[in-house]
C-alpha cells in the first residue's frame, strides 16, 4: 500500500512536470505571434513591443516557466523591498496585488504626467486615492530607480527620467503613456500554489475562471457518469452471462457502434433528430434565458457523452464477465449445486468488476476528449470549451493551468480506480 501510494505520488509529479514543460515550450508565446492575436494586425511594432514587455514576454523562457510554476512574488518582494499581498477587488471579484505597508495601508504606484511618482492608497471598497509619493527613489548604477507595483497589479521598475512609452488600449482607442515602467514582472503565485496567472486571451485571472468552468463540466460529466455506470454494468453483465446468444450479440453490437462513432457525429445526429426535426430539445446548451442549467439543456450533451461511454463500459464489463464465467471457480460453484442466480451475483460479479474498474478509470482521458467536443458542439461553457479556446488562441497560461487540472483529474481517477481495485480484490488487500 505504501509502495503504491509512493508510486502514485511520483507519477503525479512526473506527469505534471512533463506536461507543463511540454506545454510551455511548445506554446512559447515569446515569438510574438500571440501579440498580433491580442492587438490585431493593425498594431504597430512599438505597440507590440510595449505589450510584450507588459506581459513579461521578454523574460527568458526558463525564468518564465519557473515563475509560472512556483510564482515570482518572492522575487518581486525582494526587488521592491516591501511586503506585497493579494487583495480581493470587490467590484470585479479578482485578486489584485498591493504593497502592504502595514496598519491596513495598501498601495500601488503610478507615474504621473510630470514624471512624478504618485502613490495610490487603497480604500476599503477597492478604489484608491492618489497621493504624491515623495522621494522613494534609490540609486542603482548611477540612475535613480524604483521598484513597485503599478496600477495593473504588476511589479514594475521605473527609472527616473527614462520613462518608456507604454501603449494601453482603452475604450477610446490606444493611449500612449509616457514615463511608463521600463521593466515589468506580471505577479503570479504559481500554478503549484493555485494561481495560474492572467490569461492572455481574456486578460482575467485564470484561477477565477477555471473553478466555474470546471463546475459546469463536472455537472455535465457527472450527469453522464451517473447515467452510464449502472446501465453499462447491468448490460455488460447481462451480455456476459449470455455469451454468444442473441441478447449478447445485440448489446455488443450496439455498444460497439456507440463507442466507435465519434462524439460529434453522435451529437450531430441527435441534434438533427431531436432539435431540428422534432424540435423537442434545444440544439445548444447555453443558458440564454438566465434560468440556469436545466434538464432540457443538458439532455442532448449528456446523451451524446453517454452513447460513447456506455458502449465502452459495456464492452469492458462484458469481456470481463465472459472471462470470469469460464473460470474454474465458477465451475466449482455450479458443481456445488448453487442456483445460477447465486453463481452470477455472488461468485461472478465481484470478480468480473475488478478488471473493468481500472480500465474504465484509465478511459477518463478519452472521456475528457469527448467532453471538449461535446462542449464545443453544444456551446456549453465548461472547461473543455476553455481548453479548446485557449489552445487555439495559444494562451499558454490558460491552457497550461486547465491542462494541469485535467491531468490531476485523470491521475486521481486512476488512483481511485486502483484503490477501489485493491479494496475489492482481497488478493492485494491481504498481502
Amino acid at each position, binding site marked *: 500500500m*505504501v*509502495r503504491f501510494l509512493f508510486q502514485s505520488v511520483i507519477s503525479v509529479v512526473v506527469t505534471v512536470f512533463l506536461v507543463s514543460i511540454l506545454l510551455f515550450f511548445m506554446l512559447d508565446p515569446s515569438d510574438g505571434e500571440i501579440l498580433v492575436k491580442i492587438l490585431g494586425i493593425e498594431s504597430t511594432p512599438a505597440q507590440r513591443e510595449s505589450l510584450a514587455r507588459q506581459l513579461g514576454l521578454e523574460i527568458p523562457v526558463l525564468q518564465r516557466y519557473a515563475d509560472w510554476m512556483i510564482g515570482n512574488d518572492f522575487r518581486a518582494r525582494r526587488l521592491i523591498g516591501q511586503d506585497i499581498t493579494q487583495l480581493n477587488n470587490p467590484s470585479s471579484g479578482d485578486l489584485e496585488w498591493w504593497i502592504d505597508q502595514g496598519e491596513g495601508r495598501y498601495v500601488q504606484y503610478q507615474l504621473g504626467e510630470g514624471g512624478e511618482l504618485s502613490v495610490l492608497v487603497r480604500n476599503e471598497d477597492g478604489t484608491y486615492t492618489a497621493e504624491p509619493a515623495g522621494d522613494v527613489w534609490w540609486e542603482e548604477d548611477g540612475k535613480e530607480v524604483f521598484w513597485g507595483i503599478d496600477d495593473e497589479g504588476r511589479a514594475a521598475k521605473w527609472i527616473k527620467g527614462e520613462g518608456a512609452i507604454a501603449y494601453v488600449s482603452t475604450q477610446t482607442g490606444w493611449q500612449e503613456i509616457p514615463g511608463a515602467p521600463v521593466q515589468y514582472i506580471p505577479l503570479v503565485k504559481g500554478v503549484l500554489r493555485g494561481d495560474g496567472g492572467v490569461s492572455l486571451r481574456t486578460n482575467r485571472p485564470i484561477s477565477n475562471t477555471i473553478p466555474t468552468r470546471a463546475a459546469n463540466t463536472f455537472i455535465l460529466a457527472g450527469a453522464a457518469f451517473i447515467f452510464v455506470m449502472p446501465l453499462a454494468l447491468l448490460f455488460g453483465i447481462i451480455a456476459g452471462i449470455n455469451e454468444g446468444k442473441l441478447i449478447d450479440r445485440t448489446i455488443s453490437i450496439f455498444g460497439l457502434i456507440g463507442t466507435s462513432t465519434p462524439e460529434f457525429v453522435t451529437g450531430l445526429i441527435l441534434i438533427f433528430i431531436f432539435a431540428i426535426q422534432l424540435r423537442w430539445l434545444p440544439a445548444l446548451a447555453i443558458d440564454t434565458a438566465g434560468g440556469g442549467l436545466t434538464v432540457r439543456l443538458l439532455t442532448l450533451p449528456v446523451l451524446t457523452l453517454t452513447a460513447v461511454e456506455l458502449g465502452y463500459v459495456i464492452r469492458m464489463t462484458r469481456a470481463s464477465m465472459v472471462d470470469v464465467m469460464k473460470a474454474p*471457480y465458477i465451475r466449482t460453484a455450479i458443481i456445488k449445486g448453487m*442456483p445460477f442466480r447465486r453463481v452470477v451475483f455472488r461468485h461472478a460479479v465481484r470478480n468480473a468488476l475488478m478488471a473493468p474498474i481500472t480500465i474504465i478509470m484509465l478511459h477518463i482521458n478519452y472521456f475528457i476528449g469527448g467532453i471538449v467536443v461535446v462542449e464545443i458542439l453544444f456551446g456549453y461553457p465548461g472547461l473543455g470549451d476553455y481548453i479548446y479556446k485557449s489552445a487555439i488562441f495559444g494562451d499558454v497560461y490558460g491552457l497550461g493551468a486547465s491542462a494541469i487540472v485535467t491531468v490531476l483529474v485523470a491521475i486521481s481517477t486512476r488512483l481511485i480506480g486502483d484503490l477501489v481495485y485493491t479494496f475489492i480484490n482481497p488478493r492485494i488487500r*491481504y498481502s
Partner: protein
Amino acid sequence: MNMDKKFEQPVLKLEDVAITYKVRNGEIDAVQNVSFEIFKGESHGIVGESGCGKSTVAWAIVNFLGANGYVKSGSIKFQGQELVNKSDEELRRLRGDQIAMVYQDPMQALNPSLRLGDQMKEVLTVHRGMSESEAEDRCVDMLSRVYMPDPENVIKRFPHQISGGQQQRVVIAMALLNNPALLIMDEPTTALDVTVEAAVLDLIAELRRDFDTAIMYISHNLGVVARVCTQVGVMYAGEMVERAPVRDLYADPKHPYTQGLLRCVPKLGGDKASSQLYPIRGRVPPPNNRPSGCVYGPRCDYARQRCLDERPEVRQMPDGTSVRCHFAEEIDPAAWIPPEDIKLTPATEDVTKNEPILIIKDLKKYYDVAGSSLKDILGLGEKRKVKAVENASFEVPRGSTLGIVGESGCGKSTLVKTIIGLENATAGQAEFNVEDVTFDVTSSLSGRDKKLIQELQMVFQNPDSTMNPSYTVGQQIGRPMERFGTVPPDQIRSEVVRLLEAMRLGENYFDRLPRQLSGGEKQRVGIARALASRPELVLCDEPVSALDVSVQAAILNLLIEIQREFGTTLLFIAHDLSVVRFFSDFVAVMYLGQVMEFGPAEEIYQLPYHPYTEALLSAVPIPDPSVTQKRIRLEGNVPSAISPPSGCRFHTRCPRRKLMPDGGKKCETELPPWREFNNGHRIFCHLPKETLESFDPVISKAAEPAAD
C-alpha cells in the same frame, strides 16, 4: 462392511457411454463405449495419458460438458437414476449434495474474492437451508476432520492466504460437507509436492472408509492410483481398454497397452537393473483420426490383421478383469521381448571415477526481497534476502549424470540457473574444466567467455515453450551452430539432419513448425538444439516432467543413449525420485536451498538415509501395490526461505529429531556436520552415523499380499 457385491447396486453405473464435442467442422468423439460401475465405499481409479478422455467422463457424469459437448449415447446411472438429460434443477440438487467433485488445481477452483468459510458454508445453507452459525460449526468440524490446523481461523481467510496443500484440503472438506454418495476426484494431487501429495492421499483413503463414499479417482499417475484405488480402469484414446481390481491390474495386466504403460514407468520397488524403461512406439491418435479397428492396434506389439480390421468388444476374463482385446488370453507379458532398437547398450565404462568436469564449492545464491514499507522503498530499510541456495558443494565427473532432487522451492532450479549463468551467484566458486582450460562459472552470462557459453547448454521443462513458435525446427537447431561457428555455414543443414536422426526424427522434420509437433517431439528438438553447439555439459531442468509416461520413457532412453554416444556430462533436475534413480550416477537431495545428502545413486536409495530423503522415499507413489512403504509424513509446511530455520534447516519438520541424545536442541542451533559414508556418500545431519545406519529400509516388497 463386507457385504457381497452381488446384493448391492452400484452407486454409479456407466453403460456404453459415448461423448461427443461439436466443433467447427463436424463432431469429435471424445469418448466411446465406456462402461464401468462404482460401488459404495469403493475407490475406482481411471488412469490414462493426457487426451484419453478421463476428465471428459467425469464432466459427463455431472453433466457439465460445456456448450458444445453432449452424451451421444449410453446411460449414466447414479443410484439407479438416469443422469443423462436430467433437468437442470434436478441436476443442481444432486451436485454438491449427492455428487461432489474435487479438481486438479485447488487455487483455481476456489473463488479468490470470497472467504473460505463463505464458500464452504453456502453448500450447507443453500442445499440444507442451515443457519449461518450452524453451517459454520459444521465447516469447522469438517476442516478439523481433514486435519486442517486452526480451522476457526482458516474459514476467515481468503484462498491465496493458505498453501496449496491446505487449499486442496479445503476443497476436499467442502466436497464432503453434505456427505455425498459419490465423490469425483480429477487429478487432485497432481499440482502438489510429493510429501504433500502423500498426506492428501492418506486423507482420501481414510475418508473413503469413514464416509463410505464411492470415489472415482482420475489420475495419470500409476503410482498414485496403486496407492488409493481398489479398482482401476485404464483408458486409451477415449476407450476403456482394461478394468480390474488394483492388485490384478499391476500384477497381471491383460491388455497390451496396460503392459506397455507399466513398462514405461521407473519403479522404486525393484533394483536399478530391472528399472529399464521401454517406451511404447508411435503416438496416441488424435480424437478425429482414430483407427477403425482396435484403437491400440497401430502401436501394439501383438497386433494381427484382425486387430486392424475389427474393433474388439469388452470381454470378461475368468478372473473378473474386463479387457478390450481380441487376444487377451494369448498374450503373456512375461514372454515379452523388448524390441531391438529400444534395448540399450550397457555402459561400457565406469564413468563415476573420471576426473571432475564441474566443481562447485560453497555456492550461494541470495535474492533481495522487495519490502513494502516506505523505508524499504527508499532503500533505507534492512535488505532482506531469500536464501535460495546455501553453500552447495559437489563435483561431477566427466561423462556422468548428477541428479538433483527436491520439492518445489528447494532451490534446485536456481542452482542450475546459477551454473549456466542465467543468475549471478552471490558467493562461491564453480569451475568448469575442458581441454585444460578452466572457467569460473560464477560470472554472469554477459561476462562469460564464448567458449564457456558454448560448452554449457540446457534442456528445458515445458515442451510447449521450449521452442519458438515462429521458426522451423531446422532454423532453431541450426542457430547455435551458426552462432558458435561450430559448423561451416554450408554444412549446417546436413549437421542438423544428422542430429535430427540421432533424435530419431527424420529429415522431414527440418521444415516443420513447432505447432506441428507433439510434446515428445518438441522435447527431442529441444535436446537436439542443446547438443547443436557440441557442449560438454548439458543441464536438464525436469525435461520429462510435463510429458506422458510413454513419451517420458522414450526421452529418458534417448538422453542415456546420447550420453553414451557423445560422452556428454548431464546435470538432471527432477522432483520424481524414481526417474532420478533410473537415470543418474550421482544424486543430490536438496531441501530449502541446502544440499542434504549427496552420493552415488544406489547409495541414496539404500540405508543410511538422511531423514528428509527417508520421508521423500516414503512419500513416492510406487506403481506396484505389492510394495509396502514405511509411512513417514512430514508435518507442517515448508518454511519460508526468507527466514529459514536456524541450525539444520530441516529441524522444524524432522521426524527423526527426537532420536538425538539431547532431544534435538542441537539441531535448532548448530549447522549439522557432513557425515561421510561409503563411495563418497555424505549426509548433512546431526544424528550419529550409527543411528543413521540403524533405520529400517523404507521400501520393501511384501512377501505375500496382506489380508484385506
